[in-house]
């Protein structure tokens, strides 16, 4: 089977092409954040004598666990990383959900509504997550 590649200039910058690229870049960013998060978590847990699992649990659920790092630059860095991860995950998921919904919503008007609903939901959920993680 021959491999086929098409340069971006010949694909045309439609909404679909843009979202395809956006989805790819966000997922690469997520893998990068996962690796950086695990390495960073190992470093700060070693420096503070805390458990890596506790650090990760608190980072994602700051309202459900005690901060094992104390108030320091590590706390702000962890919060920034979790916020970045949630934002990239949310951005990545928007197009995925739309692709699935497009198979079931056939008419142009229902597809437009599906698109509006998902994007609105993603923006609202992201804002809530940023606020709760940063202020907890």
């Amino acid at each position, binding site marked *: *089977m*021959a*491999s*086929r*590649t098409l340069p971006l200039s010949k694909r045309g910058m439609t909404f679909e092409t843009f979202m395809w690229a956006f989805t*790819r870049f966000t*997922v*690469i960013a997520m*893998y990068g954040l996962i690796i950086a998060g695990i390495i960073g978590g190992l470093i700060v847990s070693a420096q503070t004598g805390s458990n890596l699992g506790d650090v990760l649990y608190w980072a*994602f*659920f700051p*309202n*459900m666990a005690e901060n094992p790092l104390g108030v320091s630059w590590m706390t702000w860095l962890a919060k920034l990383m979790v916020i970045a991860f949630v934002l990239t*995950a*949310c951005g990545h*998921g928007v197009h*995925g*959900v739309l692709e*699935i919904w*497009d*198979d079931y919503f*056939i008419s142009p008007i229902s597809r437009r509504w599906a698109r509006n609903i998902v994007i609105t939901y993603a923006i609202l*959920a992201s804002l*809530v*997550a940023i606020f*709760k*993680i940063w202020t907890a």
Partner: protein
Amino acid sequence: MGLKRNVPLFTALGYKGQGPFLAFIMHRIGGSALFIFFTVYILALVGVPSMQGLMRNWAFQVLLLVFGLFHAINGLRITILDLWPKLIERYRTVINIEWAVYVLAAGFAIVVVLRGAFGG
């Protein structure tokens, strides 16, 4: 636009595409599961007690791992094939490697969750 497909799930699962087709279906189910998980996560962050309880539930965690890990590993495979299209010539081999990695990773993660839930 859109196709009219009246194919029952079990007929679809028996489709001869096998590994690659199953990977496609699992990726979609995994993505949908992660979308639900994301909603539960946001509600838990807001402070809804039932959602916080759900996040701590071992069965929910196992389901999340089964689908979430597959979505992540299959997504990595798709990204790698996008970046190195030559590998498409070894498509079936790549899919088989992906399944092997998934079974090992998911198996390990599930054992860890169940050991945490039931002790031992």
